[in-house]
Each structure stands twice: as C-alpha cells, then as structure tokens.
C-alpha cells in the first residue's frame, strides 16, 4: 500500500455512495475494513447502475423466454434466433447524465458503449437507433443540447460505419434538467458463434485490449446513480471523449479474433471499467483472478490502483483466452495497431487479488460482490386512477367543426413531438453498409440481411405522457407500439430490449411508476409473445427533486421473411381504398390533441386491450405477407387523421408531388375525437379496390372492426367533400418546425 493510503472516514464512505448498512456488509464480507481501492470497488459494484439493487426484484418478473430466444438478460446483450443459422443481438442503454454535461461527447460515448456491448458477443453491428428526450423547446438549454447530442450520435456512428436507422425525439419540460439519450445497437452473428462472458479454466490468461487507460470518467457509474442538483452541475465531473476510429479498429480486431477459437470469455469495459468486467466474468464462472496492474496499458503517469480499477476510459475490452493462444491474438491486435496486454490469469481461489508495484492493492472475494450485491424492496405507492375524459366535454374551440379539424391537423403536425425529425436523421448516416431498405421516417426501419431476401425490422418507442398518466397502461402501450410498428411493415416481432428511465427510486411514488410500468410491460410481453432479452435501468433522473416523466423506452426487433412482401407507409396510387382496421372510440384522454390544441394535460391514457392488439396485428401481418396491402401505417400519436396525413406526406416524389385522399369521416362520435383520438391497436391500410370486399369480409370473420375511410386521389386531403387541406401546406408545417427551431 502507498503511504498516502487515506483513512476510511464516514465522509469518504458517503462520498462513495455507500449507505451505512452497505458499508457494514462490506466489512462483514472482508472481515476487516476495506482500503481505499477496495472501497472504490465496493462503491461501483454496488452502485445502482451496476448492481440493479432497486430494480432487480421487479425486472425478474419480466418474461424473457421464447423458443427463439438464444440468450436473455444477464449477458452483454440479448440474442434471438432469426432462422437460417443466424442470430440478432441487441441492447439499448442510457447515457443521460454525461450527455447533459457534455452533449457531443456524452452522446458519442453512449453510442460507443452500446456498440461494444453487441460486438463483444460476436456480432457485427448492422444498425443503431436512439431515443432522445429533451426539455421544452423554450428552455434556454434545449437547442444547444439537441445540436450537441445529435452531432455526437452521428459523429460516432457515422465514423464507425454503422447506419443509424431510427429512433424517436420528443420534448417535455420534465426533461429540462435531465435529458434522455438512449442508444440501441443491433448486430448480426452466426447462431452457433455467440461469445459469452463466463470465465473458465484456471491458469487461462486475462487479456486487456483496445485503448490505454487514463483517468477519465472515474466514478461515472456512481454519477449515473446520483441525483443532479445545482452543485453537481457546478462540480462538472469528468466525462469521456470518444474515439470512434479506435472503436472501429477494436471491432474489426475482435471479430477477426472471434474467427479463431482462442477466446474463452469476453466482456467490454463499460461502466466501472476493469472492475466490473473482471468481477462479472469471474463471478459468472465462479473463478478467481489475479490482476497485475503494472501490465495495464496506461495513458498517464502515476496512476494509482484505485484509478486504474475505476477508470472508464473508452474503447477497451477484457478477455479470457485459452492458454497458449496469446501470441496469435497479439498478432491480430497489433495488426490493427491496438494495445494488447496479458494483465493476469484465472485462479481457483474465487478471489480478486490485485497487485501493483509488487504490493497487494486489493484482495476481495468475488461472489459476494458480483452475485450477492444488496437487493432492495423499496416502498412504492400505486398510481391513482386518472379521470376519464369524454370527447363531448372537450369543446371544439370555434363551434364550426370542420375548419377546426384542418387547423388542428396543421398545428399537430408542426408540434414538437409530431414534427418531422428529418433534421435529426439527415445527420445520421442511415445508408452505410448498403442494406437499408426502409429509411427513417416510416413505422420501422428495415435492414436487409446480406445475401438473402430476409430483413430485420427495427423500432424504438415510448409514450411518456401515457406512462405519467397511468404507468401500467403506459408500460403496456410502449411495448405494444413497438410490436405494432414492426407488424406494420410486415415483420414478425421477436423480442425487445428496454431502457427504463425514471426519477429516484427512493421516493415511493417514483418507485410506484417503475413497478407499474414493469407490470404493464410484463402483461404486454406475455400477451404478444414478445420477450425481453436485454435492458438497462437509469434511475435518479431528477433535478432539485423534480423527476422526469416515467420513460420506459422500448426497442423492438422483428424479422421479415421476404422483402418483396414488406409494407411501407407512403400512399401509392390514385383510386386505391383506404381502410381502418381496429376500433374507434374517440379516446382523447392524455392525447396530443388534448395537450397541443385544448391545452389540457390530463386524463386517462387510451386503454390497451392486449387481446385485441394481438388479434388485429396478427391479421394485418398475414395480409401484408400475402401481399394484399400496398401500404400500411399504424395509428399512434395524434390519431387517425395525423396517420393519414403522414401516409400522404410520405408519398412525396423527388419532384415534390404528393398523393392525397378523399375521406369520409362521418360517425356518431364527434369529428375531432374521431380524427384525433388515440385508441390503440389500429392500422390504416391502402388496398386495390378489387380486394376491399374480401378484406372486410376476412376481418369480419375474425370479429375485427373495420371502417372504410375513403379513396386515394388528388393532391390534398378532403374531408366529407366539404373541406380541402393542402398537402403542401401540411408538408411545410411538418418539415419546417425542427429546422426552423434549430436555426432560431
């Protein structure tokens, strides 16, 4: 030990985020007081971010199995079988706090981290997605944060050459001091060549590859588990700088080594760096490790064991190799100009023994830290049932209904949440690799699988205002919406990854939001045969006691068996029929219409009937696979008329001509509720009129409600023959908001 070894005071313990009882538990495990390095290790291993101590109990309730699931939660990413010997590997992760402090680098390193989670399992990343939440546009920080985050995500993904094909981007005041940056990566691997992180084989070398270790991000993991307050912003802890070029080399080198059989286990060094990667690998295999920190490649001089063990320097990996294969591996990493160092070996001891400069810097049992971290059953309160909003009580502002509908439509399409996010995805290379067959802007992105007619469909969604209004239906809705988006392009949904963004779990009402969102998700996953295969929890998203809206972001992955039978949202041809599949109840509670047009943020969110959801979706998917629809779009945010408008706007040719529709919206529910109600489980399809009767009959045979909406034609939307809404006006409104805002 160095002479400067400080005394472990109560203050130091608190600074490390350990509670008194956790510290006592640590003393019990060691049978003595920890030294500083050991305290640091306990602190990061038992941080909320690494240990899931507040969420574990509830995460366990999520369904994680299906015949096609190869690997569920617990590994670096989830793995599903997509047929023909191939597997899709995917995960989503948050990088919220660093992105608020340094938007470009925070977002960039978020992308870097999730990419490593996926290629560490042997997959070549083939697509990225991202879920972004910003504060209200009027907030003085928002513009700068949007610009930095989007540039950072693009900067990393574009450079490494993985297409960023989808995501979401919305705004709400609850994110003013806590933006959300959730990044998702999807990779492709041979189903029988998946790499795991379970260490095995005493004597096998532990190998460090990638970039050198510096003093960056020390305590990143504890930062991600601490609330923000003004002081934290002042303190401005270190964030990491990403190096996508090195990550690209690391990716190629790892995949090259994975073509051999030299690897026993591999794990990226993410949060809590060398500590968590070594503890987790050893813990899973019940092994011990001897680490010699003198061999760790270091970027700076005079680093202490504490710093080396806790550094979160990016672009690094830890592997266990088979004995005798070191030279072969070294040659590959040297070819790619990366550091390669044998830093230790596995033992049978079950202990982590860390040495440096000939002295023992830490000596800890692995299992209690890795597998038996604290687990809390935090008190939680159930959400109160929100009031039902009746369409008739939401007055149409000026009495005369029709003009109001067109005014409202234009306003909705240019509202921050619904406005086109082209300004965002234009900055993402969404085409590199040459296999993007559906670009951003549709229901799900579609990426072809090389050498086949098959494709993966990918989407990411969440509707936080529903989750805030009633967490249980919000959680179910988020899952259902991704399932619906995959279905709408003709894909068979296979599974989800989640990124649970919430406030402080130490507050019962926040814990309640978490518990009930999970419950809704669980029900939806079960009903839709749509398991959770990976995920991430980000708590403490609050500033000065004000929490974000509960935001369980869901990333969904599905497979399309033949891209010839894929559907897109763009209207195709004059004279085709438009048909709604699913039921209209005109539900306006917690809708965008209510918030943006009536200025009311309340009411129960739309009910999610999972049986109906499944029935309608399975029906639509079958029709798409049989080639019956020429276009299809699910109905979500903004309701029916917004969805139709999106289909018309998507039909724009390079020369700017668009195809509209003649709509018949006559009904017993008030027009504004029919047009903008957000009832779930619905799809709009475009069909050649010769098939319409058959379609209606086939739906009726399954008790699926349908409604003829009208016919494609003209360059406008006309409603009930009385009112014409110019598509070019809508387009300007829809496309204009974000670029205008950013230019402001």
């Amino acid at each position, binding site marked *: 030990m160095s002479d400067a070894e400080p005394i472990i005071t109560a203050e130091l313990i608190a600074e490390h985020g350990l509670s008194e009882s956790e510290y006592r538990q640590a003393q019990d495990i060691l049978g003595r007081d920890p030294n500083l390095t050991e305290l640091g290790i306990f602190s990061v291993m038992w941080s909320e971010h690494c240990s899931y101590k507040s969420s574990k109990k509830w995460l366990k309730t999520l369904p994680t199995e299906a015949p096609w699931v190869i690997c569920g939660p617990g590994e670096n990413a989830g793995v599903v079988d997509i047929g023909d010997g191939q597997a899709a590997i995917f995960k989503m992760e948050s990088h919220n706090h660093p992105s608020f402090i340094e938007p470009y680098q925070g977002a960039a390193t978020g992308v870097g981290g999730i990419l490593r989670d996926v290629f560490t399992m042997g997959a070549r990343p083939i697509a990225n997605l991202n879920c972004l939440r910003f504060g209200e546009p009027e907030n003085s920080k928002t513009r700068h944060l949007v610009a930095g985050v989007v540039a950072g995500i693009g900067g990393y993904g*574009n450079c490494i050459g993985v297409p960023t094909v989808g995501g979401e981007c919305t705004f709400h005041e609850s994110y003013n001091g806590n933006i959300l940056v959730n990044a998702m990566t999807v990779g492709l691997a041979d189903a029988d060549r998946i790499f795991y992180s379970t260490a095995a084989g005493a004597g096998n070398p532990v190998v460090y590859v990638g970039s050198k270790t510096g003093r960056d991000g020390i305590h990143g993991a504890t930062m991600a588990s601490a609330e923000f307050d003004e002081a934290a912003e002042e303190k401005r802890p270190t964030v990491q700088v990403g190096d996508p070029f090195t990550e690209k080399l690391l990716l190629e080198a790892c995949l090259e080594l994975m073509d051999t059989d030299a690897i026993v286990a591999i794990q990226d060094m993410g949060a809590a760096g060398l500590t968590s990667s070594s503890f987790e690998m050893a813990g899973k295999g019940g092994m011990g490790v001897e680490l010699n920190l003198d061999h760790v490649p270091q970027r700076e001089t005079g680093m202490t064991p504490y710093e080396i063990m806790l550094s979160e320097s990016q672009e690094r990996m830890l592997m266990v190799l088979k004995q005798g294969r070191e030279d072969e591996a070294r040659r590959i990493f040297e070819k790619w100009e990366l550091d390669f160092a044998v830093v230790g070996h596995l033992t049978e001891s079950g202990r982590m023994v860390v040495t440096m400069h000939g002295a023992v810097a830490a000596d800890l049992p692995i299992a209690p830290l890795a597998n038996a971290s604290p687990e809390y059953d935090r008190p939680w309160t159930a959400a109160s049932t929100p009031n039902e909003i009746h369409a008739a009580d939401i007055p149409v502002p000026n009495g005369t209904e029709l003009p109001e509908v067109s005014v409202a439509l234009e306003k909705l399409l240019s509202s921050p949440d619904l406005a086109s996010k082209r300004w965002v995805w234009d900055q993402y290379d969404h085409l590199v690799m040459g296999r993007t067959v559906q670009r951003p802007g549709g229901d799900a992105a579609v990426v072809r699988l090389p050498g086949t007619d098959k494709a993966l469909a990918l989407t990411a969604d969440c509707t936080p205002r529903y989750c805030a209004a009633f967490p249980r239906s919000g959680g179910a809705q988020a899952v259902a919406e991704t399932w619906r988006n995959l279905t709408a392009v003709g894909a068979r949904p296979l599974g989800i990854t989640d990124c649970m963004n919430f406030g402080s779990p130490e507050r019962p009402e926040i814990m309640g939001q978490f518990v009930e969102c999970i419950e809704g998700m669980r029900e939806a996953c079960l009903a839709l045969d749509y398991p959770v295969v990976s995920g991430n929890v980000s708590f403490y998203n609050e500033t000065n006691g004000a929490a974000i809206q509960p935001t369980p972001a869901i990333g969904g992955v599905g497979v399309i068996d033949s891209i010839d039978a894929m559907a897109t949202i763009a209207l195709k041809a004059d004279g085709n029929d438009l048909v709604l599949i699913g039921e209209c109840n005109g539900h306006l509670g917690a809708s965008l219409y209510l918030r943006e047009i009536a200025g009311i943020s309340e009411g129960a969110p739309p009910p999610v009937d999972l049986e109906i959801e499944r029935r309608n979706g399975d029906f639509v998917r079958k029709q798409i696979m049989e080639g019956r629809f020429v276009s299809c779009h699910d109905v979500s945010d903004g309701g029916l008329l917004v969805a139709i408008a999106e289909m018309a706007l998507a039909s724009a040719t*390079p020369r700017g001509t668009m195809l509209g529709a003649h709509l018949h919206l006559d009904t017993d529910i008030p027009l504004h509720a029919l047009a903008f109600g957000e009832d779930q489980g619905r799809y709009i399809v475009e069909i050649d009129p010769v098939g319409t009767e058959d379609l209606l009959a086939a739906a009726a045979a399954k008790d699926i409600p349908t409604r003829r909406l009208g016919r494609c034609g003209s360059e406008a939307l006309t409603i009930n023959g009385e009112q014409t809404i110019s598509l070019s006006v809508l387009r300007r409104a829809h496309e204009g908001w974000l670029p205008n805002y950013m230019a402001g």
Partner: protein
Amino acid sequence: MKAAVVIFPGSNRDVDVIDALTAVSGKEPLLIWHRNTELPKADLIVLPGGFSYGDYLRSGAMAARSPILKEVTVRAQAGVAVLGICNGFQILTEAGLLPGVLMANRDLKFVCRNIHLKVERTDTVFTERYAEGQVIRVPVAHHDGNYFSDSETLTRIEGEGQVAFRYCTPEGHLDDSVNPNGSINGIAGVYNENRNVLGLMPHPEDHIDESQSCADGRPLFESLVESLA
C-alpha cells in the same frame, strides 16, 4: 474487369462498393490492405468511403500519405482507372491526384440524403452508360464534401471539362438550394486531366438495385465493367 479495393483503417463503405462491384461484374474485387506496398495488377482501383484514420486532422490527409498511395499514384499516371468515392475522393485530392480540396460542409453538419446529379459528360470509362445530360439520384453521406479550389484551378478544370458531376434539381437545374454542402459551382465530382481518375462525394454504390429504392448508381459500375473488360 479486375478491380482492387484499397482498405484503410477506418474505411467503412468498403462493404458497399465490394457488394456493388460483385453484383455488377459478377466477380469479387481484390482487397488490398493499406500497409501493402505492392498492388496486384488490376483494371480498376477503388478507394472506398469511410473515415480513414478517423478523418482526424483533415479528412483523407493521413491515408493520402500511406505507402499504398505511392503505388496508386504510379498506376494512375500509367492510365489505370482509379475511382475515389467520398473519403476516397478526399484522399485523392489530399494526395494531389485530383485538383482542389474538400472542406467542411457549409452548415458544418453531416448530411445523409438523396441528391440529384447532372452527369456532365458521357465519354469516360466511368459514365458511358449514362445518357448525355442525364440526371441521376444517389445519396450523399459526408461531413466534409464542400469542394473548393482557387479560381485559377477552377477555371482550368471547368475549361478542360474535368467536372464529372454537379448537384442539381430533379429537373437538372443548378441551384444553390439543392447543393448539400456549399461546393463551388455545385461540383460533386471531378476527373484528372486524362479522365482515368474520378473522385466524387455521392455514393453510387448505395443505389445499385431497387431494394435500395433506386438503381441510378448502377450504370457507373456497368460503364466500368464494359470499358475495362
């Protein structure tokens, strides 16, 4: 046609151009690692898109000084066809094989979207399958595609017919509003004097078949296959 694709650390549209060459010519191209100092015999040398060396310092700068570029230069001077796409174009200008430089886009943002190009001439090995004055639709995906040269050079390349492609409207008009990066005279691609070296920012290799929504990039590769067979 035998093609060779040079791979630099950080190349990332190598896959795209390999797929395109394979699809159009029926033959897989040779892959050449940047450290090689020798190039096998080839009818076409391709420098693919990407971020060679991270594009740190300046895009293409470090790759332009790698050993393999000496060989590429010798071949280019001997008349072998050389195609640089995006980062490849940046490398060719940095290496002095093509005139001008590619600066940061006018609005300093990466831009990925479909654009239209006017094919300036169809009497080259790269473009003979296009029609005179044809407008094609292909994507761009770059941060540094803002073509610039001093006025003397500009006059020369315009006068010598070295401009290969220009950004235009779908109808073929030159217009600043459709120029994605601020390039001078809307220049999207240039030839060397002998027109055996072409550099362009857009990605014809990503529009090869209809599943990619458009196949306007295919004739470029067909031209090469036909004239270099």
